[in-house]
Every structure is written in structure tokens, then in C-alpha cells.
């Protein structure tokens, strides 16, 4: 049997860690999430000699404090999973800064290997690194790699195996923090080793350091353990003591001492004969980030992203719909009629799977475009450009791209909000994304605007909806930032990676991982939701219809047109008497102040919670216009003709506008709700989102309708 080795890759963002990971594992990868949080966990495996090596690509981090999810995840992984070997991937051209994380990893675990990545770039830039000396000073094996050119990978695996087998004669260096800090560390270590049960889980010196740094998570853990109070008291005393001596908080002092150790080592082992040169990236940035052109170029890029997504996905969606229709027809002919089996398969199952599949091309292409922006390095620039504007919303530049993606589909948009590192900003962004009018809402607008507005102003009416969505999102974001998540967000600091041309393989790996996650998360929910809607609109089945359609059909066997009209009558009455119809009738009085007290619309809106584009289909059935074959024109006519019992027309432009405003703003679709649940980890936020958006929708439609009536528009 081959031996198993668990390896973790840790490193700064943009250190080439992911490229190295791809080189190591090829396509044998698996994307998942760390338990309880939404940080992506990417695992892969490689067989080397007689060893089965499992590799985990940890999130890119700069240090191991408890300030961001990524950092917490990284260090908790190292404790809980205890990988056999940790490879610290560092950017050779940024030696000092990259080694900062390495020193922290060394304090945390004994088995560290440094992969001196991007060695070629460093040499080009004029860095000369004495690898042997650096290895001796740090006391860890060092391998130089060029992941982009597949260099050093074998050697790295060799060193991993050697370290695993204990063939390592180096002694790990320990960073010394100076007499005063060391004294306090000793005091803390003594008291910790005597009392706390926590020490068994963590290295003693590291734990003491974290107590001095006043690390939130670990302090809380120690506090709960036996003699916790005593230890906390000592830690407070030590911190206070150091603060009075140095006039600065211990965590900053410790960070500076670490840098001291690193720069000491680097000044011996690394020589630089370089001057800072203006690279190609700087030249590109001088245009793309310029004051005059930065914003227009960014907007054009965003526009191109949507053109790309929708132009390419349109034909594919068409094929999928044709295929779905074909399957439904086929199943309809093959399956028996009784007990609703046929309708369950054709409408419920095939319809449900279909509505998941129909989204897939759009979502996949959006993810692909997103991966291109990320891998090329432009995403960071976009966030930077939008930072100023987003500040007016109380948000960061990083929230912009997720929000823009919301115009395509809210689900990937909410998933993209992961890149925002402050929890408050991320929640705010997630909660305002549903106001961004997604593509699924467009058919509903098309129906009502097409039916009741002249072609001349239809475009403007549509545009006003998108604008309204943005305005509500901005206002909501300010409200959330002020009342729900008060306090200053982390200021915007982001590294601008050099521009790179993305590789096809990298793009596909990025896209694929997310698509799989989307299908798992949203797909199952959409499918379940469609089945629920199918059930609600088909049951109860044993209803006595007021009109005896079957005998009418028998009486007029020759009249084809009559027969199909009668069949539609059955469908419509079936839904009217179903649970869905009852729900619609129960809800419609609440819609009266908004102008559209039509129970059919109420049924449509209820169904629209599953997926917004369902609304048009439901209305089609309820208005007896039959299947899609006769086109949307008949449904539009039916809407225009619709009258109340007293003979007054239900729909006029004002009512239609009030209705589309409601559709724009009300409860997000089930898939979005499910993703909010997954991304926030509790049911609290999706529930809040449903209630909040629906309340806002009701208020907005109320203002539109009642205000319009006062102005004499109705």
C-alpha cells in the first residue's frame, strides 16, 4: 500500500500559489467549502513515487491574525487537520513580505517547506538569493520553483517526501522578540503550561504570543478553559507592561520584530541590484486607472461582459428549451394518464430540470467572464476605480462587481460577494443584490410594458425600472450600514497584481468549480421549488368542476378549435380550484391598494418566488392563452381586455407600472434565498431579505399607484 501524505499550500495572494497547485495536481481537483464558512476549499491529489499526496490549496493570506475569515480558516485548518507538511509559497521578488507569513507558519507547525516561487521574475528584476544560506538562517528546506513553466515541481515533491520521512537535518529558527517581550512570553508560557487544557491543542509559545497579541478567538477559548481568568489577567498585565515601555500595542511590536528578523536574514542572503522599473503593467495602468479614462473604460468592460454572456448564451438556451419540449412531448406520449403521473413527469420533473438547465449557460458564461477579469488582474483595478462611487453607499469598491453581476443573475452575484473581506460589507452587499434587476425578471416587464405602453416609450419605462432598482439598492445599503451593521468598515487596501494573460486551463478550472457549486446549491432548490409549484397547482384533484367540460368535448368531437378551447378551460379552472388558486385569492385583497387586485396575478407572483420568469408561464395558463405556440401577443391582448366584475378594466399603464415595480423589488427567488442562506450561514438573513424586499416592494408600488392616481394618471 502506498503511504498518504497530507500537504497544505499557504501563501500570499498573487504569489502564484494557485498556479503551483494546478501544476501539482492537474485536473484532479475538488472544490468545496470549509465547514461553516464560505471560503472555498480546493483539494487535489498527486501520486509521486510510492506516495499518495493530498494537497489542499489554502486561502491566500498575508498573515495569521483573526481579523479575516481567510486567515482564521487557514490557521484553524492547520490545527484541526494537522497536515503532514506545510508548503509556504513565496514570491521570490517580494522576499521580505512573503516571508512574514512563513515565520508565522513556522511558529505554528514544525514541518514547513518554502517554495521560492517566481524565481525567474526575481532574477530578471535583479534579485540574487543565496538559497542555501536562506535555508540555513530560517532552518527550513527551500526549493525554487517557476510554477508557470513547470520548473521545480519534482524537486518540491521530493523535499515533501523527505520531510515526511524525517530526513531533515535542519533546525527550525525561532524568531526572538527582544528581552522585554520574551520575559512576558515566558511568564505566560509558565502559567499556560501549568493550568490550561487549551495548551494541548496548540504550540505553547505560539499560544503565548497570541495572548500577547490579544487575539480575539484564542483569548475567548482560553477564557473558557480551566483557570482561564488567571491567564487572561496575566496577559492583560503583560500587554499593559509592554505598552507602557514601548508606547505601542504588543501586536504591532511583535509584527515589527518579525520583520526585523526577516530583513536581517534577507540582508545576508539576498542581494538586489535592481532599480524599480516601470513595467508594462504600470504603462497599462497609467491609462486604465487614469482619471479621465478609468471609469468609462471600466463601464465599457462591464457592458462587454454582459454582451458576451447574453449573446453567447441565447442560442444555447434556445436549444435547451427545444430539447426540453421534445422530452416533455415524448414523455407525454409514453406515460399513462392516470394519477397525475404524466403531468408530474412532464410539468414537474422535466419542467423543473429544464428551468435549472436554462440558467446554466448564462451562469457559466458569467462565471467564465468573471474568471477572465480575475485572472487577468483587471478585477482589482475595477474595484479600485469604483471605490470612490461606492463610498457614497457606505460600501467598498469591491462590492461593485458583485452588484453589477446581479443584473445577470442574483445567484452568482451573491457568490461573488465572497471576495469582500469585511463581514459587514459583505452582508450589506448580499442583502442589496436582490434589488439589481436580474435577467429572469425581464420577460415579466416585457409582457406588461408591451401590453400597456406604446412602443415609443417602452424603452424608457424599462430603463426607469433598472434605475429604480439601483436607487433602492443605494438607499437600502445606506440604511443597513447605518442601523444594521454600524461602524467603520475596513479601509480599502488591495494589491494590484501585474497584468497577465489568463490561461485557458486556469479559466476553465475557475469556472468549473463555481458552476458545480451553483448546480449543487441553486439547482436542487430550484428543482424542489418547481415540484412544489406543480403540486400546488395540480392538487386537490378530485374537484367537481362547475362546467362539465368533458361532456362538452364529447358533444363537439369534430370541432377542433372548440375542443382545444375547452381543454384550456379545464386547465384554467383546475388551477383556479387548486391550492395555488386559493392562495392567490387569499392574497389578492392585499394587492388592492397597489391597483392589481387580480387573483391570477397573485398566483403568478406567488409562483414567481420560485423563479421570476415562471410568472409569465402561470399567467399564460390562467388567461387560457394556451402554450407558448400562440406567442405572447394573445396574452397581451387578454391582459388589455381583462375586466373586473363591475365591468371596469383592471389594467391601465399606471397599474402595469405599479405591478412591474412590485415584480422588480419583491421577494428574491428561491435560488437566491438558498444562496443567501449558504453564504451567511443562518436562516436569519434570507428570512430578513424576503420580508424586507417584499415590504419595500409593497410600499414602492403603493406610492406609484396612489401617487399616480392623485396626479390623475390612472
Amino acid at each position: 500500500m502506498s503511504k498518504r501524505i497530507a500537504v497544505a499550500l499557504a501563501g500570499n495572494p498573487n504569489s502564484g500559489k494557485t498556479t503551483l497547485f494546478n501544476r501539482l495536481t492537474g485536473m484532479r481537483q475538488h472544490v468545496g467549502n470549509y465547514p461553516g464558512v464560505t471560503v472555498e476549499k480546493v483539494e487535489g491529489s498527486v501520486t509521486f513515487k510510492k506516495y499518495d499526496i493530498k494537497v489542499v490549496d489554502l486561502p491566500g493570506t498575508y498573515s495569521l491574525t483573526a481579523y479575516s475569515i481567510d486567515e482564521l480558516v487557514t490557521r484553524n485548518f492547520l490545527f484541526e487537520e494537522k497536515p503532514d507538511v506545510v508548503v509556504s509559497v513565496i514570491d521570490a521578488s517580494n522576499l521580505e513580505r512573503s516571508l512574514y507569513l512563513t515565520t508565522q507558519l513556522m511558529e505554528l507547525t514544525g514541518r514547513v517547506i518554502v517554495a521560492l516561487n517566481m524565481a525567474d521574475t526575481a532574477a530578471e528584476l535583479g534579485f540574487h538569493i543565496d538559497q542555501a544560506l536562506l535555508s540555513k538562517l530560517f532552518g527550513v528546506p527551500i526549493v525554487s520553483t517557476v510554477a508557470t513553466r513547470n520548473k521545480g515541481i519534482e524537486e518540491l515533491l521530493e523535499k515533501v517526501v523527505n520531510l515526511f520521512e524525517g530526513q531533515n537535518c535542519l533546525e527550525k529558527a525561532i524568531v526572538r522578540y527582544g528581552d522585554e517581550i520574551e520575559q512576558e512570553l515566558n511568564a505566560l508560557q509558565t502559567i499556560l503550561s501549568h493550568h490550561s487544557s487549551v495548551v494541548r491543542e496548540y504550540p505553547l509559545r505560539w499560544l503565548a504570543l497570541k495572548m500577547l497579541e490579544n487575539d480575539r478567538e484564542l483569548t475567548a477559548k482560553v477564557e473558557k478553559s480551566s483557570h482561564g481568568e488567571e491567564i487572561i489577567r496575566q496577559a492583560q498585565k503583560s500587554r499593559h507592561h509592554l505598552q507602557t515601555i514601548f508606547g505601542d500595542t504588543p501586536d504591532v511590536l511583535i509584527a515589527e520584530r518579525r520583520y526585523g528578523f526577516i530583513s536581517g536574514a534577507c540582508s545576508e542572503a539576498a542581494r538586489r541590484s535592481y532599480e524599480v522599473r516601470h513595467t508594462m503593467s504600470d504603462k497599462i495602468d497609467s491609462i486604465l486607472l487614469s482619471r479621465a479614462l478609468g471609469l468609462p473604460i471600466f463601464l465599457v468592460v462591464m457592458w462587454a461582459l454582459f454582451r458576451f454572456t447574453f449573446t453567447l448564451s441565447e442560442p444555447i438556451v434556445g436549444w435547451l428549451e427545444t430539447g426540453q419540449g421534445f422530452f416533455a412531448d415524448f414523455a407525454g406520449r409514453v406515460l399513462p394518464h392516470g394519477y397525475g403521473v404524466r403531468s408530474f413527469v412532464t410539468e414537474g420533473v422535466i419542467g423543473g430540470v429544464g428551468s435549472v438547465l436554462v440558467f446554466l449557460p448564462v451562469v457559466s458564461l458569467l462565471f467564465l467572464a468573471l474568471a477572465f477579469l480575475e485572472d487577468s488582474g483587471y478585477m482589482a483595478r475595477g474595484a479600485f476605480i469604483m471605490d470612490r462611487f461606492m463610498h457614497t453607499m457606505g460600501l467598498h469598491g469591491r462590492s461593485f462587481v458583485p452588484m453589477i453581476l446581479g443584473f445577470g443573475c442574483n445567484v452568482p452575484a451573491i457568490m461573488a460577494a465572497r471576495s469582500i473581506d469585511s463581514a459587514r460589507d459583505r452582508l450589506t452587499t448580499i442583502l442589496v443584490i436582490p434589488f439589481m434587476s436580474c435577467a429572469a425578471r425581464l420577460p415579466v416587464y416585457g409582457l406588461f410594458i408591451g401590453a400597456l405602453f406604446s412602443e415609443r416609450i417602452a424603452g424608457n419605462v424599462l430603463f426607469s425600472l433598472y434605475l429604480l432598482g439601483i436607487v433602492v439598492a443605494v438607499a437600502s445599503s445606506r440604511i443597513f450600514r447605518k442601523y444594521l451593521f454600524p461602524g467603520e468598515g475596513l479601509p480599502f487596501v488591495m494589491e494590484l497584481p501585474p497584468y497577465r494573460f489568463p490561461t485557458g486551463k486556469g479559466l476553465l478550472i475557475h469556472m468549473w468549480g463555481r458552476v458545480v457549486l451553483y448546480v449543487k446549491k441553486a439547482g436542487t432548490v430550484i428543482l424542489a421549488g418547481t415540484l412544489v409549484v406543480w403540486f400546488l397547482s395540480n392538487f386537490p384533484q378530485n374537484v367537481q368542476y362547475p362546467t362539465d367540460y368533458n361532456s362538452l368535448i364529447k358533444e363537439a368531437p369534430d370541432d377542433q378549435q372548440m375542443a382545444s378551447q375547452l381543454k384550456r378551460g379545464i386547465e384554467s379552472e383546475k388551477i383556479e380550484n387548486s391550492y395555488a388558486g386559493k392562495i392567490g385569492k387569499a392574497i389578492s385583497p392585499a394587492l388592492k391598494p397597489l391597483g392589481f387586485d387580480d387573483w391570477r396575478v397573485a398566483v403568478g407572483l406567488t409562483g414567481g418566488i420560485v423563479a421570476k420568469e415562471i410568472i409569465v408561464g402561470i399567467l399564460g395558463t390562467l388567461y387560457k392563452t394556451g402554450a407558448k405556440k400562440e406567442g405572447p401577443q394573445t396574452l397581451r391582448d387578454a391582459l388589455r381586455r381583462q375586466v373586473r366584475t363591475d365591468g371596469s378594466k383592471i389594467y391601465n399603464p399606471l397599474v402595469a407600472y405599479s405591478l412591474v415595480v412590485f415584480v422588480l423589488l419583491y421577494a428574491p427567488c428561491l435560488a437566491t434565498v438558498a444562496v443567501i442562506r449558504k453564504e451567511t450561514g443562518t436562516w436569519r438573513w434570507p428570512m430578513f431579505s424576503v420580508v424586507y424586499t417584499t415590504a419595500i416592494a409593497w410600499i414602492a408600488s403603493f406610492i406609484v399607484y396612489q401617487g399616480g392616481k392623485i396626479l390623475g394618471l390612472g
Partner: protein
Amino acid sequence: MENTILPLTAIHSGSLVTLVSIGGGRGVRLKLVGMGLGVGMRIKVLSSSGSGPCVILVGNRRLALGRGMTKKILVREETGS
């Protein structure tokens, strides 16, 4: 050599400066230190818009700093050399 200390917002593009202090909370300072931005480091301002965001060069890395951040960073401009 002049010794005026200015906020980063007041620095023109292309200038070389030395970082004097970083204001703001503990989290902010630690994050910046982790990203390699420490007191005493020489940084080059690559692009500055005057009122807000700016891009700086530290070592070989480009960092984008948002509006709130640039106001809190104090630097010393080196005019002599």
C-alpha cells in the same frame, strides 16, 4: 532635505516618500504591516487623484489604497535627493 510631513492625499504622482505613520485602528495597522507597509519604508506614489484613492509602489508590489485609507497615512516627502 525638507522635513514636511504630509498626508498621502497631498502627494503628487511620481514622488518618492517615506512612510511616517499609519492612523486608524489596530486591525488596519496590522493588515497593512502584513501587506508589507511598515513605518520607515520608502514608497513611490504611482497615481494619485488628489482627493482620494491612490496607487503606491512598495518594494515590487503595487497597492491600491482607498479614500479612507490615504487620509490616515502620513509621509515625509524627499525633495533633496
